[in-house]
């Protein structure tokens, strides 16, 4: 591969003897109304994937979280810790009788 030649600028990914090694295989494409998704299937460790077309908001959001896995991991961790904290806090309140378990247990406003 001649990475210094002008045509190289057109490309986003290479696999050749002098770039990522020599591997053998094919590319598999999934075609839907939303787009075309490509995934390499080679016999080594090299991988590439890409997508063409309108992926929709959901896919865009999903791709954002996949691309920012550190942020995603942090958010998931905060949510898990927060859930556990609130669960334990609520359970403690109930145990101390500060939070009624059922609506029927509410203290009556009648004298």
């Amino acid at each position, binding site marked *: 591969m001649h990475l210094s030649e002008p045509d190289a600028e057109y490309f986003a990914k*290479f696999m050749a003897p002098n770039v990522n090694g020599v591997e053998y295989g*094919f590319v598999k494409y999934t075609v839907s109304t939303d787009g075309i998704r490509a995934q390499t299937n080679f*016999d080594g460790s090299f991988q590439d994937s890409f997508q063409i077309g309108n992926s929709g908001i959901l896919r865009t959001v999903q791709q954002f979280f996949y691309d920012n896995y550190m942020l995603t991991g942090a*958010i998931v961790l905060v949510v898990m810790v927060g859930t556990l904290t609130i669960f334990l806090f609520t359970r403690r309140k109930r145990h101390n009788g500060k939070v009624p378990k059922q609506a029927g247990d509410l203290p009556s406003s009648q004298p």
Partner: protein
Amino acid sequence: MKWIFVLGLVVLSVLSLNDDNWVRANAATSFTFAAAGDFGQNANTNASLIRLAASGASLFLALGDFSYRNGSSENHWCGIVRSHVGQNYPFELLAGNHEDGEEIRPPDGYIGNYTICMPNQIGPIVGDYGREYYFDYPAVNPLARFILISPGLNFSEPNGKSDFYNYDNGSSHYVWTASTIDGARSGSIPWVIVGMHKVCLSAGMFECHIGAYLSIRPDIIQLLIEKHVDLVLQGHDHNYQRSKQLNCVTAEQFQNSASSTVAQTAFTTAVQAQSSS
């Protein structure tokens, strides 16, 4: 604290929609196919064919250069492929320069013989199978039109008949390609995919092998870009090169397309060989 919960639930929900779920959700309106070029007949070829058989791809596009062996090698090569993918699997052929009968002497088989031992299995096609044809897939309510062309090949059969496939502007092959793309658009087929053997844009071992000699702007490549073909598949270069999204092309003169406002995208992908022959 509440917003963190909401955000977290959104994240978890989005992440739960993995690739398999996405494909499954679109099962009624999606399909898979695979493509490669430059095969040979060795252990690497066999390994690739085994993986192809297990891949679940509904069809395969073979983008030229099949056996790499001269002297009636066609039947043997077809037998190897069939032994792995099955007798009726749509392993669709497109000629490369090794089997056009002209460029490689002696040729590594003739495309006319390959198309006999590996006939079209996809269903109805329009054109000349192995040289220049198209088909829509699925046949009912198609999602894609596959257009297979042979720019730069000079077909010469054993009977002496020679036919150079010229795709310069105004040529019959150029007009055929243009009208076939237009037909897909007017038929509201969502995606147009074009396959060919030879390359033009490449950082690999080959210069532009399409169009006029040493042309840096072959008419056919310009046509594919101007008509916003969605995906271009090529072989020939024995490597893998995946382009950025392109909407203007001149070989040797990269032009960034980021500022363009074209509605469709066009990708150029040169797929890796199954053989290093």
